[in-house]
């Protein structure tokens, strides 16, 4: 089975749910107010939504905003840490990819699987300013980066 939300009826904390709905790459996903986007994504049966450089899927790892594995695009904001961002009803979430279509990867392992084209709703997340490679993103959503 997949990750899930503890049912309100059996939750020892006595919480009261207010439902919300977001879309994830065009598909609806239901959650409750107060959940993080990562919580909504996990509890709706998704364990991976971001694509690493090799094309391998990534989801939540550290859960507290440190590892940046769970980045998504939310509405107009790219590179949002899903594990820290509270879901808001109507949020439009798109998955991101760091896969380089033309990357020559000397290492073994799967090559880019999912097509990172716009038709699939994937957004290359080059917002951290790679020094090279296709799809370098210089939009205002790009972020400052620390020491190289």
């Amino acid at each position, binding site marked *: 089975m997949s990750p899930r939300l503890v049912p309100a009826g059996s939750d020892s904390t006595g919480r009261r749910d207010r439902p919300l709905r977001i879309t994830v790459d065009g598909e609806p996903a239901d959650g409750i107010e107060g959940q993080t986007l990562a919580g909504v994504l996990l509890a709706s049966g998704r364990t991976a939504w971001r694509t690493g450089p090799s094309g391998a*899927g990534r989801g*939540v790892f550290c859960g507290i905003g440190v590892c940046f*594995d769970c980045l998504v695009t939310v509405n107009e904001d790219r590179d949002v840490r899903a594990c820290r961002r509270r879901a808001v009803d109507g949020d439009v979430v798109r998955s991101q990819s760091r896969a380089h279509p033309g990357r020559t990867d000397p290492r073994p392992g799967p090559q880019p699987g999912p097509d990172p084209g716009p038709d699939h709703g994937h957004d290359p997340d080059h917002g951290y300013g790679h020094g090279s490679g296709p799809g370098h993103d210089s939009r205002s959503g790009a972020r400052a980066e620390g020491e190289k």
Partner: protein
Amino acid sequence: MTAARHVAVVGAGPAGLAAAHAALAAGARVTLIDSAEQPGGQYHRTLPEAYAAERPGELQHGWSAFERRRRQVLAHPRCTWLPETSVWALERPDQDGEGTERPGRLQERPDQARKRSVGAPPRLHLLCGGPVDGSGRTRRTLDADALVLATGAHDRVLPFPGWQLPGVYSAGAAQALAKGERVVVGDRVVVAGSGPFLLPVAASLLEAGSRVREVLEAGTPGTVARGWSGRPWELASQLGKAAELKDCAAALARHRVPYRLGRAVVEARGAGRVEEIVTARLRPDWSVVPGTERTVTVDALCVGHGFSPQLELPVAAGCALRGEQPGRGGTGEFVAVDDEQRTSVPCVFAAGEITGIAGAPAACAEGAVAGWTAAGGAPSVQPLRVLRRSRDQGRAFARRLARAHPVGAGWPGWLRLDTVVCRCEETDYRALCEAFTSAAESAPRVAKLGTRAGLGPCQARICGPTVTELRDRFAGRAADGPAERPADGLPAATPHRRPIAQPIRLGELASPAAALIDDEQHLPEGEQLGDASDQIPSDSKQRPSASDQTRTEDEQTRSRGEPTHIEGEQSHPDSEQESDS
């Protein structure tokens, strides 16, 4: 009428909240900053208010004491609480010399410059207000009289084949999801790694209805028993912690979850997500005993091998670190502090896990000592002596933890050449081996650029300590590897150096920052600042001047990173332009 001393506290976990509490008690004005919506940190991670939980303390240890302290601090007239606020940079008062940070050229009023010239703590550069990683957050600067850093720690996870698969979580992630929003990561879960933290994680999962198949402690029975059983009087002082762990152990026993010592997860497998794991028996040095491998079906794996302190802010402030050799009983580097929690930098204090992994009770004591001293409280009062004693007991507990749960030196034996070490850049062990065995490439910066390990979005937060440890091994010595080329002209490389401590969008960087609290707003002790809940800087109170707002886009772009001050102090980007900014 002298203005109360202003103490800024970064981090509102157990240490930071205690620091704020003590500083207020000592008469200071306090600004408490945290990136979360509510105080508590990871230890007292609370349910979101939107959950309207009737019993929010149900999942918490020490909830009533925490809740009381939280109420007192947030409601205090001399406390400004800044939730959802990130410190994205620290700027030292002396901007010359080696190792200083230059997040932006400052436009200072003469009185501000004077105030910051001698013995002042670094200026905080803040991003205020949600939503998290949004694009419209407000930039502020904050100059306090003293700074308490209580930024805490995150899980350290050692790499193993398949650890990057979805469904493999840090132990802290599983805990945060279960405790913080009632999401469980799976139904057939294994919790593995090292240290007592595995117990509360397993207990949280059980409480939330998961089936925990087993809990694996990598430390062998002998090591763990020797570490925990010696000096029993040290444990007696940490009764709260001991009771918490006992509760967790009881939960494991109730659910018949095996707790196996000397066993680790050495591989995770699955198509697109974790489906099974391979566990193996370990020797005391954590090398695998051949032939003891066992395959276990799981839908989630939670791993943690101790904690990494979040050191970017102390490092940016210039605080000296004290080293502990990984794999030799220690878990890395921490901020060096004296008996009063002072760091090596004047007016900068540190408390909690960044000074050593010792748990919440010790963090509270450290925070209280730091907050009281930072506020200029009398050094000889009786409560402080009690706190110091409690803090010392906490440190003894930390030493005991480190002794009982050292990271064994044999863990790199789990790695294969194609094992991912840097998750962001997917740098594998082979690439690192090649770099470290080449004299030309093994210097930290050269290896970083050559292999890209540590260059990705997390900026080496996850792989940094691991890469450093592997490099030291290859260099065949402990702390000092090959020297940096002198031509670098850069401060010594450390995995904790992140001048930009939190992501900031270029649009936000380009917008001017106002001083969070103007000098004129310094209030005499006891004067009401109003309800703490509405002290988040509001637009009406601290709006940048009209001249700032009407600057052209071009001007704003040119003045990137230049905090300006309010009340008509206009920045002059052209005249103040720095050649290297």
